[in-house]
């Protein structure tokens, strides 16, 4: 196999994790950091080699009839459930996994490098737990890479759990801070809840199709669906249930409403971690999952509709909240949620007309657009987060009220952030424009309503991003709070910004239509100028509005806030979703389920057991009187007994 070295991409981070985790404490902090970065660099190079070979190579069996094939490179049996259901761990290369390899290793490498600077104080001295940090980063990278190359749905589930745990560990990196601990716990539990549905979905799916394997499932999706013919549950076919459950699993990781609540809190972790996990890679795992099972979803329209509605709603909901957040990382987090929802919607607007052969505009395009957006979004969102990290590192605060007017102090960061904003807002020729345009085209193809709705959200995106941008870098003159004046950060932090900014500018020109399609065939796309023009226009309106409101200090924002105080408050409090969850978990589950059960256990079940013991005891005490120890008593009883027996015997004899 020409690509058999792909396994190295996964093996190196795993080995790094084990090595740094076990030996890191003994090594110098700097050394571990450098080692981590170097290992990640090597991994990145290999990943690029793999992806480029896959996309442009013409090796044996890679391309058949103009269709790029899925390659299964390794398949090692991990656990055999039964004859049919065998869990394997392997490497599957196809357009999306190859693309994801690039995305993950690039961002991860940038973050590794960036963290050298970020996780040190202003004198370049590494923080406490530096080794642990790099070990966890390697663990996460390993898990995420393992996830994208999964050959079967169960492997996907395994790595879903793994990324969940690495995310938990990294969010809780500052474990002495209660907020971080709480946030990590929340993230884990919410995604675990979603994974529960994922698991149920897998159980149902694998039961009816008797396989976990993606290739077997996707080779003939119609058959796969037909295998559950007639099996229904509550009026819907079991496959629709299975796919919906699997979607819920993905929605948990991808922070779709109403399972999004963990993501904003996850910003308690170090900022590079937020960039890597909670912006670029892990949160798109859900999208990736749906994309992986796309042929099945396309045929199961019911599940697709659910995804579509959830995606469209989340996109708007998160964008609306992002407009009022004052913590820049939170604002970016909601922006991430909104963008991921774009990808979800884009996947879900694809429709199939009966057979899969029919390709019309919209079908297949949505898939491609979604994956393309995933790619570009990872780059510019990582950029934005890393910029935010640089700012936070400089001013030691997450609140935009502590920033303002930083443009003069941190020009490179400012420009990089601006590029990110332009990219996410969809201004040509930046990356976001191209991918978002495809998404909008796909949405319009599904229906005018979907298109208009998503266009509106796109406008909102431009608005809130530039609101953040202006509030950080302009608005008013910066007041220096700390002894250091904020400034651009050391090269380890600035270099990744520059590289990512460059990628954000040019990534849109990647011919995604030719590389990343659901069936491996080319998909010819062309810019739909009416949609593109409209979306640019709406983005410009959003930017203009933000400029008017937030470029210079003025009264307007305050006035707007006062005009609709309740709405503003609700949005700021994220429409009280957290309070709702808090209520459910604490009041309902803890107070009304766990406590009563514990009480029941202590008092009823255990009480019964103790009661048995007590009854035995008191019965013993009651009859203890008979054994008084008084000889006289015994003699008396004996005498009476003897006389009685004598009397009875006599009576018997006489009769």
């Amino acid at each position, binding site marked *: 196999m020409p690509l058999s070295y792909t396994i190295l991409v996964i093996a190196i981070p795993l080995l790094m994790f084990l090595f740094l985790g076990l030996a890191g404490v003994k090594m110098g902090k700097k050394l571990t950091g450098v080692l981590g970065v170097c290992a990640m660099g090597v991994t990145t190079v290999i990943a690029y080699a793999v992806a480029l070979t896959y996309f442009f190579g013409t090796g044996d069996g890679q391309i058949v009839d103009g269709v790029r094939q899925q390659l299964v490179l390794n398949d090692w049996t991990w656990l055999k459930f039964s004859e049919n259901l065998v869990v394997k761990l392997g490497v599957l290369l196809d357009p999306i996994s190859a693309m994801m390899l690039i995305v993950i290793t690039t961002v991860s490498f940038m973050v590794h490098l960036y963290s050298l600077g970020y996780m040190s104080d202003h004198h370049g001295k590494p923080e406490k737990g530096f080794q642990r940090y790099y070990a966890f980063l390697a663990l996460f990278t390993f898990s995420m890479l393992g996830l994208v190359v999964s050959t079967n749905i169960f492997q996907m589930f395994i790595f879903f759990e793994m990324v969940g745990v690495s995310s938990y560990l990294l969010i809780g990196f500052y474990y002495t801070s209660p907020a971080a601990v709480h946030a990590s716990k929340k993230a884990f539990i919410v995604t675990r809840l979603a994974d529960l549905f994922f698991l149920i979905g897998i159980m149902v799916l694998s039961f009816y199709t008797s396989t976990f394997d993606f290739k077997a499932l996707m080779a003939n999706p119609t058959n796969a669906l037909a295998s559950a013919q007639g099996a229904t549950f509550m009026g819907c076919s079991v496959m629709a249930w299975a796919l919906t459950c699997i979607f819920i699993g993905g929605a948990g990781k991808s922070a779709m409403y109403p399972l999004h609540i963990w993501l904003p809190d996850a910003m308690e972790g170090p900022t590079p971690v937020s960039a890597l996990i909670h912006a670029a890679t892990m949160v798109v795992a859900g999208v990736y999952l749906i994309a992986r099972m796309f042929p099945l979803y396309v045929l199961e329209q019911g599940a697709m509709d659910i995804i579509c509605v959830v995606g469209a709603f989340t996109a708007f909901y998160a964008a609306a909240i992002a407009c009022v957040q004052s913590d820049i990382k939170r604002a970016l987090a909601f922006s991430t949620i909104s963008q991921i929802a774009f990808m979800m919607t884009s996947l879900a607007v694809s429709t199939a007309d009966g057979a899969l052969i029919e390709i019309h505009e919209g079908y297949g395009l949505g898939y491609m657009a979604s994956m393309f957006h995933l790619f570009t979004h990872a780059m510019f969102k990582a950029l934005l987060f890393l910029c935010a990290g640089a700012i936070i590192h400089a001013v030691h605060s997450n609140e935009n009220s502590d920033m303002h007017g930083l443009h003069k102090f941190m020009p490179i960061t400012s420009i990089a952030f601006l590029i990110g904003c332009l990219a996410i807002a969809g201004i040509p020729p930046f990356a976001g424009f191209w991918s978002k345009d495809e998404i909008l085209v796909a949405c319009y193809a599904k229906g005018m309503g979907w298109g208009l709705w998503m266009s509106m959200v796109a406008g909102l995106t431009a608005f809130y991003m530039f609101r953040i941008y202006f509030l950080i870098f302009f608005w008013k003159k910066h007041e220096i709070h700390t002894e250091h004046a904020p400034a651009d950060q050391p090269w380890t932090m600035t270099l990744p910004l520059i590289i990512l900014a460059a990628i954000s500018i040019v990534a849109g020109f990647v011919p995604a239509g030719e590389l990343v399609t659901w069936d491996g065939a080319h998909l010819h796309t062309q810019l739909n100028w009416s949609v593109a023009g409209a979306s640019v226009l709406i983005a410009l309106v959003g930017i203009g509005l933000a400029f008017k409101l937030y470029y210079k200090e003025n009264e307007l924002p305050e006035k707007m806030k006062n005009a609709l105080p309740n709405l503003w408050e609700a949005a700021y409090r994220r429409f009280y979703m957290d309070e709702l969850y808090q209520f459910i978990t604490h009041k309902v589950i803890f107070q009304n389920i766990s406590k009563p059960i514990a009480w029941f256990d202590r008092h009823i079940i255990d009480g019964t057991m103790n009661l048995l013991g007590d009854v035995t005891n008191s019965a013993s005490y009651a009859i203890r009187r008979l054994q008084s120890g008084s000889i*006289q008593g015994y*003699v008396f009883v004996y*005498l009476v007994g003897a006389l009685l027996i004598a009397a009875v015997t006599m009576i018997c004899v006489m009769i």
Partner: protein
Amino acid sequence: MYLVPSLVMFGCGVFGFITRKNMIAILISLELMLNSVDINFVVFNRFLYPEQTEGMFFTLFAIAIAAAETAVAIALIINVYRVVKNVDINQLTKLKF
């Protein structure tokens, strides 16, 4: 006819044993019963097997054993009295569970 005193003695002994609280008195009651039994031995020996003497011997044997046993009992009682200044069995409950 010889059995009547024996019966009376035994009845007194049983009654005394059950009702008396003083250990000495209980011991005396015990001896009464024992002696009534001894009398019975002698009497029955004479009634039933006048030419044999096993009953007589047994009685003598029993008297000797009773003497030893009484000595032990009295020793115990005296020692108990020395320790707790009391020989009332209702008060002597220290060894009870």
